């Protein structure tokens, strides 16, 4: 079962200079998360491409152990 800390660590390790705030929207159920990710790596990318960068961190885990991951991405 993924935890908010695990998701945060994976995002911050994979995306340069990123800061991630991850909430568990199921209140501890651990399969439906919301992440707000701030990174200069998003500059110049469309929203789709920004979100893809984050989804790519988790690959097939999205839709698997991580049922849903709501995203909000910003450059600063």
């Amino acid at each position, binding site marked *: 079962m993924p935890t908010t800390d695990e998701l945060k660590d994976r995002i911050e390790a994979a995306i340069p200079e990123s800061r991630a705030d991850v909430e568990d929207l199921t209140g501890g159920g651990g399969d439906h998360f919301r992440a707000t990710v701030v990174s200069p790596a998003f500059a110049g990318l469309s929203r789709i491409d920004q*979100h893809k960068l984050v989804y790519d961190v988790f690959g097939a885990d*999205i839709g698997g152990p991580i049922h*849903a991951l709501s995203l909000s991405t910003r450059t600063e």
Partner: protein
Amino acid sequence: MSATENPIRDAITEAITEHDVLLFMKGTPEQPACGFSARTVAALEALGAPFAAVDILPDPRIRQELSGLSNWPTIPQLFVRGELVGGCDIITEMYETGELASVLGVAAPDEAPDTAPAAVEPGAPAPLQIDTDGLRPPTPGR
């Protein structure tokens, strides 16, 4: 990508090509089967934008092929003029900023609410079917 290799992917590609605004969702616009799909439908309905919808639930291969094609892991997925615009988060955000109306070429509401409305207006278009029963590879040797 030829018709003989992957008929479901071909049917998805064809649907995306043929419809200017196409939503892949869980359930139908009248009866969304997931809150994310419902919110996305509500944003489109609130703008009065005509759209076609495909229910991905009847056959798991539809979702599998769609995500392979779009490189996007979750449902719903909104395509406008052949391009993936986003899922629920992006569509909701674009609705709130007025960008969705602009992308869809419709007038923005006079007073955009803070969040996309939860209720779906009646009168949504009939859902499009990806008919997987009819999607068999052609008989070899014909």
